[in-house]
């Protein structure tokens, strides 16, 4: 891989790729993306009913990124760390929808016992190091996790996600340098959903192609189409194998799009309806559905069944969260210190 190679075209065509990966894997990717989609829709609805408060950043539209990248990991030795739009990564890491929804509800049964909320989904056992609410703050932490992997010769990889807003933070640039000089096994992933909150990334960036930023630090960079989960997955199977072998960092810009506002309170008036509709036609779920149908790996009935199942899981997650107890007041002072 060379720095700033182009975004499309290098991979095999979708249909043949689908054939190559086989039904089991593709079904898994589809299920995971649909779970995220239905879960987030449910979360949005419950936010509207005030079951969920505060900031709530939905992942709808970006599902292929978390699912395609994390599917390439071995979470026994690899790690995931991301920013505040973290529900999708948490689900892709295999965290239960119940514990995530309960966390959104602030319930004692939430993954963080109701103390983290939407931006702080953690699962130590699944090597999910959370959602971080400060833009870019997780990036230096990722280098530390990679340092430990290297120190212990674990042959693991850290996937560190952040957005097109975070890429201008000093933390990103310092971390890229550190990862390179210490040869740390970390893949920096800029999920470019085109808007840092309400600002079009092109308005605030000296370059439009983020993938060239790796070059400053001698780190190979590449731009990938994040609406096609098979492209993402295929790229990351290779990338992770490369890092396991070299022990050195990589940098990816994954081009994606969020359908919803930055958070639940954002009407997203900074973009046009036409733009949104255009992206919705490249919906990652529809693309995969089409790829699978064309490869005869998915029937309409099967799709409907998966949809129903994922909707049901999401509804049950909401029911579970609803029925779960509030944290005890006494828990207020728990877990401040070890």
């Amino acid at each position, binding site marked *: 891989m060379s720095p700033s190679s182009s975004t499309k075209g290098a991979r095999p065509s979708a249909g043949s790729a689908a054939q190559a990966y086989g039904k089991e894997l593709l079904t898994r990717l589809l299920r995971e993306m649909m779970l995220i989609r239905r879960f987030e829709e449910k979360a949005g609805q419950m936010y*509207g009913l005030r079951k969920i408060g505060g900031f709530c950043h939905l992942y709808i539209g970006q599902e292929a990124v978390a699912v395609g990248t994390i599917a390439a990991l071995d979470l026994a030795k690899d790690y995931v760390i991301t920013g505040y739009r973290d529900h999708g990564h948490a689900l892709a890491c295999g965290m239960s929808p119940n514990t995530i929804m309960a966390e959104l509800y602030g319930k004692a049964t939430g993954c963080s016992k109701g103390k983290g909320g939407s931006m702080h989904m953690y699962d130590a056992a699944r090597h999910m190091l959370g959602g971080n609410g400060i833009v870019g703050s997780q990036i230096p932490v990722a280098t530390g996790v990679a340092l430990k992997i290297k120190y212990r010769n674990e042959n693991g990889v850290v996937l560190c996600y952040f957005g097109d807003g975070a890429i201008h933070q000093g933390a990103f640039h310092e971390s890229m340098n550190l990862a390179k000089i210490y040869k740390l096994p970390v893949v920096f992933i800029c999920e470019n959903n085109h808007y840092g909150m309400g600002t079009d990334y092109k308005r605030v960036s000296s370059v439009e192609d983020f993938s060239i930023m790796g070059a400053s630090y001698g780190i190979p960079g590449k731009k990938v189409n994040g609406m096609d989960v098979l492209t993402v997955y295929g790229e990351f199977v290779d990338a992770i194998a490369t890092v396991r072998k070299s022990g050195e960092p990589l940098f990816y810009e994954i081009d994606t799009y969020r359908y919803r506002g930055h958070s639940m309170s954002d009407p997203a008036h900074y973009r046009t309806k036409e733009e949104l509709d255009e992206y919705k036609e490249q919906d990652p779920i529809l693309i995969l559905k089409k790829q699978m149908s064309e490869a005869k790996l998915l029937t309409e009935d099967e799709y409907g069944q998966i949809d129903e199942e994922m909707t049901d899981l999401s509804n049950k997650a909401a029911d579970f969260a609803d029925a779960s107890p509030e944290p005890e007041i006494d828990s207020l002072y728990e877990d401040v210190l070890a």
Partner: protein
Amino acid sequence: MAEKVLMLALSPTMEEGTIIKWLKKEGDAVKIGDVLCEVETDKASMDYESSQGGILLKIAVAEGGGAKVGEPIAIIGKKGEDISGLLAGPGRTAGPAASSAAVGAPGPAAAAVKVRETESGANGGAPGTSVRVKSSPLARVLAEQAGIDLARIQGTGPAGRVVKRDVESASASSVQAPSSQAGLRSESVPVSGKRKVIAERLSQSMFSAPHYYVRLAVQADGLLRARSALNARREKKVSINAFLMKFAAEAIKRYPMVNSSWQGASIQLFGAADIGLAVAQPDGLITPVVRDCGSKGLLQIDAELSGLIERALANKLKPEEYGGATFTISNLGSFGIDEFTAVINPPGSAILAVGSIKKEPVVGPDDRIEARTLMRLTLSCDHRVIDGALGANFLKYLGDIIEEPVRILY
């Protein structure tokens, strides 16, 4: 099964939304994510995306109509479903009221707010019922333990704050409130401003200046003879107190340290003997001051003193006429008191207490008992300034002058 479509909070602060426009009409198929309608929130107009799929069976809130968050705005279900139950019955999803009840911990509103009752009279503005005494917390505890009323202690801390050492020195000499007796009335008497000043000044003196006392009985014959001789030629009689003032001023010239004041870091020696005389008034005590007695003649002292006493009894003294005595005389002889001790009057460091002049048996020459005219003097001294020997020498010299007034010429 058909479900209600509920109004959602499309902004964090939205309580109610207005349907601007329905983008689907009854009978239309709705997919999850389809925009059902546009809603005007308190902030902006937002697309309402459906999180439910099916057929839009019923629009419950027409365009221009409003719905509170959690209230149904439509019903979505399968074609032909009976929705009559939904039109009347409660929604499947709990509304915001239930939600906030579940989330909300008992807030401050739940706690009973008790209005603190004020003690009767404490804030009633009754005059003189409450005097705030500046004191350290420790002093308050110690005073309470010792049963001492803080108001009776003169503080020596900053701005008169009563501190530990004040309570400790007061606890020895503290006066307990007398218990009520039959025939006497138990009441709280308001403290006049003057009484308060007296209390503060003398308490401060008593509890900060270490007092000691030297006593002397002097033969008053010489004084009386001199006074008789002077008054024989005068219409207005010169008082004994004027003589004592003059004599004290002369003794001060010899022992100037007696005419001084403890200032903490220094001792202030006064350049003039400004001598005060304690005068009883019906509502208290006042000490008019004759300035610079050492440079004035007896007649002038007497004249000034008479005028001051007159104005004192008429309550017409000006502050400059009764403040700043460097030495004070208190004479209770006219009350028939043989002898007593007086509290030093600040800023002075000594006060002379004078008893009555009367004949007493005295052991005279050859051990014979004789009748002599005696006057008993007690000098209270501030030990911080006046050591015992100085107090003794001063009083002895003053006694000598009284016995033999011609000595002032020596």
